[in-house]
C-alpha cells in the first residue's frame, strides 16, 4: 500500500503476486497496525474513538460496494437496503433465538448476499444507468417490505433492540471496546478484499468490467460472476449492517434509507473506483470531513461573528464546504484520492532527481 520501490525487479510470478512487494511495505503495514491498534485507542478520548467507529463501519461498506461498482463495473444504488437486510436478519436472530454474534454476523451477511444476488439478476441484461435504476427499485422494495412486514420489522416501529455483543462474559458496550471489535472486522475485510481481487474471481470481475463480451469469449461465465459480485458485495453490506446494529444496539429501518446508498457511492467515487486504499480513504474522507469542518468552524467562527449567527451558519457553511471540497478533489484528480496519493508517491519516487 504505502511503499516505494526503485524499479521492477521481479523474476517470478510469486514475486509479482506478493501482497508485500518490498520489506518496507510490510513495515508500513506493521506501523499502521501499531498506530490503529495501540497508539490511537490508548491515547484518544472515547469521543474520537466513536468517530473512528463510524469510519470503520463505513470502510467495510465501502469496500463491499467497490467490489461491485469499482471492480466489476455494475452500478448499484441498493447498498443501504442490503445493509438493512443484514441488520434485520441479525436482530431477529439475536432477539428470537438468542444466538451469539458470530452466528448473527455470518447469517446477516449470507442473507444479504442471497437478496443481493436476486436484486442483481437484472444486471445480466442491462448495464450502466439502467442497472442503477433497477437496483434503486431493489432498494425501495426492500425498504417497503421491512417497513410493512411486521414479522421482519418487529412491529410498526420497524425497530428491534439487540443485546450488546459479548466476548466471553464481557458485553462490548463502550466505544473503546467497540473500536477493537470493529477494527478486527476492518482488517478481515481488507485482507479478504486484497486476496479476492488478485484471485481468479477478482480477475474475472475486472475482465467483466473492462469488456464483458471479451470476458465471455475468454471463457468467463458472465452469469455466474456478475451474480457472485452482487452476492459478495451484499455480503459486505450485510455484515456492515449487522455491525452498525451492534454499534447502536438497535436495528431501525430509517438508518438504511436511500441517502445511505448515495453516501456510500460518494465514498467510493471520491476515494477511487476499483481500489482498496481508495475505499478506505473515501470512507474516511466522507465521514471525517463534516466533523473536521465543524470543529474548526466552532473554534474560529466565534472570532468574527455572534454565537447565534455562528450556530446558524455552521451547518449551512459546512454543507457548502463539503460539496465544494468534493468537487475540488474530483477536479484535481477525477480518479479519486487513491490516484492522488499515487501521483504524490510517483513524484517523490524520483525526487529530487525529477527530469
Amino acid at each position: 500500500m504505502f511503499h516505494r520501490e526503485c524499479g521492477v525487479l521481479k523474476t517470478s510470478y510469486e514475486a509479482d503476486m506478493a501482497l508485500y512487494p518490498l520489506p518496507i511495505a510490510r513495515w508500513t503495514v506493521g506501523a499502521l497496525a501499531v498506530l490503529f491498534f495501540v497508539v490511537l485507542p490508548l491515547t484518544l478520548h472515547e469521543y474520537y474513538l466513536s468517530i473512528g467507529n463510524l469510519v470503520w463501519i463505513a470502510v467495510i461498506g465501502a469496500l463491499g460496494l467497490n467490489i461491485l461498482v469499482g471492480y466489476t463495473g455494475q452500478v448499484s444504488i441498493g447498498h443501504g437496503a442490503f445493509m438493512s437486510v443484514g441488520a434485520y436478519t441479525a436482530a431477529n436472530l439475536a432477539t428470537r433465538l438468542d444466538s451469539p454474534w458470530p452466528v448473527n454476523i455470518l447469517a446477516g451477511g449470507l442473507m444479504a448476499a442471497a437478496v443481493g444476488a436476486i436484486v442483481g439478476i437484472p444486471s445480466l441484461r442491462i448495464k450502466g444507468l439502467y442497472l442503477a435504476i433497477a437496483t434503486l427499485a431493489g432498494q425501495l422494495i426492500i425498504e417497503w417490505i421491512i417497513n410493512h412486514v411486521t414479522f421482519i420489522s418487529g412491529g410498526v416501529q420497524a425497530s428491534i433492540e439487540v443485546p450488546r455483543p459479548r466476548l466471553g462474559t464481557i458485553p462490548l458496550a463502550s466505544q473503546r471496546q467497540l473500536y477493537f471489535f470493529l477494527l478486527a472486522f476492518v482488517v478481515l475485510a481488507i485482507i479478504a478484499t486484497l486476496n479476492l481481487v488478485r484471485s481468479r474471481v477478482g480477475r474475472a470481475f475486472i475482465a467483466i468490467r473492462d469488456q464483458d463480451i471479451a470476458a465471455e469469449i475468454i471463457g468467463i461465465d458472465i452469469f455466474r460472476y456478475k451474480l457472485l459480485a452482487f452476492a459478495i458485495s451484499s455480503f459486505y453490506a450485510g455484515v456492515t449492517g449487522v455491525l452498525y446494529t451492534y454499534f447502536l444496539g438497535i436495528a431501525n429501518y430509517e438508518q438504511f434509507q436511500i441517502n445511505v446508498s448515495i453516501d456510500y457511492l460518494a465514498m467510493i467515487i471520491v476515494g477511487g473506483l476499483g481500489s482498496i486504499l481508495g475505499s478506505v480513504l473515501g470512507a474516511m474522507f466522507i465521514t471525517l470531513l463534516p466533523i473536521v469542518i465543524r470543529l474548526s468552524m466552532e473554534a474560529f467562527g466565534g472570532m468574527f461573528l455572534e454565537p447565534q449567527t455562528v450556530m446558524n451558519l455552521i451547518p449551512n457553511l459546512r454543507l457548502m464546504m463539503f460539496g465544494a471540497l468534493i468537487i475540488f478533489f474530483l477536479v484535481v484528480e477525477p480518479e479519486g484520492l487513491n490516484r492522488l496519493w499515487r501521483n504524490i508517491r510517483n513524484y517523490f519516487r524520483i525526487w529530487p532527481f525529477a527530469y
Partner: protein
Amino acid sequence: MRLRLIVLLVLIGLAGVHAAPAAANHEIVIGMQCDRTGATQIVGTILCPGKHDYIALVNSKGGVEGHKIKALEVDHEYKVPPGVESYERHKKEGAVSIDVYGTPHIYALAAKLTEDRIPGTSPGFGSAAAADGIRYPYIFPIAATYWSQGTAAVDFAKKQLGGSLKGKKIAYIFYDNPAGREPIEVLEDLATLEGFTLRTFAVPPPGVEMGAQVLDIAQRFRADYVIAHLFGGAPAVSIKELKRVGYPLRKVIAFVWGSAEANIEAAGGFAVAEGYYTMQFAGVGQDYPVLKEIREMYKKQGKPAPKEMASTVFYNRGVLIAAIHVEAIRNALKAKPDGKITGVDVKAGFEKISNFTLGGLVPPLKITPNDHEGGGLVQIWQVKGGKFEKTTDWFSAYPDVLAKHIKAAGSK
C-alpha cells in the same frame, strides 16, 4: 510518504483536541441536537433559536441556582451517524441531559442513553412506548406522544361531531413511515370503543403526492372527520389538496408536526387554510411572559428581537424544550447544591417536574418515575382570521386506552 499520512492523522487528531474547549467548572452542559439543514430544517431553523434564547435568558438572570447553563448545539442534518457522533461529543463535554432531535435518533441512542445514564428527551416524536419510565428509565418524551395525540384527536372529533361518534366515518391520513403508522393501533381500538368506521390512507414518502388519497377521503369514503399526521412539506400539500376537492378544513385536525405557521404559509397563507384545526404541545402566539422577557433581554443588549419569534409554534416549542431541561437541572441542583450533578440526578430532576407552566406556554405537566410523558396534554388551535385562535385548553383523552397500549408495549 507513509510518515506523512501518519503525521496528517495525528494533526487531524490534534486539531480536534484543540478545537474542543474543556468545559469550565460548574457550568452545566446540555447536549442539544439540531437540524438546521436536513430533511426537517423547516422545524430546526426556528426551534433551535428558541432553545438558545431561553438558555440565554436563564443565564442573563444569573443561571440556575447560581450555575450557568451551556447549551452545546450540534447539527446532524437529520442523519443518524452524525447524530451518534454528536451524542458522543456531548458526552465528552460532560452533558447531563441530551435534547435529542429526530425519531431515528432517539431510537439509535436509546441503548446508549440508558447505558451511560444520561436522560434524553424526545418531545412530540419518538416512541410512544417510551412514556413508560420503568421500561425506558432514561428516555423522556416530555410532550404528547403520537398515541396521546391520536386519542386527543378522536376526542376532539367526537366533540365537534356532536358528542357521539357512533356510525361516523373518520379518515386517518398519514405519512407512511413508523412514526406515521404508530397511532393506528390506538385509533383502531377507539373505533371499536366509540363505534366509528376508521379508514387509513397512507401517503408514501416524500409525501408530496396525495391527490388520490384526498379525493378518496372527500368523495368516495366521504369522511365525517379527517385526522392528518404528516411531516415536512406534506401538511401544506394536504391543505391544498383538501381545499381543491372542496373538503371543509374545519373538519380536519392535524397532529403536532403539521401545525405550524410555516406549514400554513407553505399551503398559501392563512386565508387559504381558514378553519384548519391544529394540535399543539406548547402554547401558540406571543402573549406569554417568558417571551416578553426574551424580547426585553434583546432590547437591553440593544438588538431587535430575532425574527424567528414571529413563527410562534416552533419557537415556543423550542422554549418549552429548553425550559423543561433547565427545570430538571434546577430540581437536580436543589438536591445537590454543589453543582456536581450527573445524568442520574437530572433524571430524578425530570421526574420531579410538576405544575411548571411558564405562564401558560408549557402545559401543566406531571412527570413521574412511571410516566415520562407527563400527561400527554395538548391544545387545539384553529386557523381563523389570519392567525391561530385557541379552541380548547390543555386536555388529554382516553387514559385507560393509552395505559393499556403502553403496558402491552412494555411487556414485549
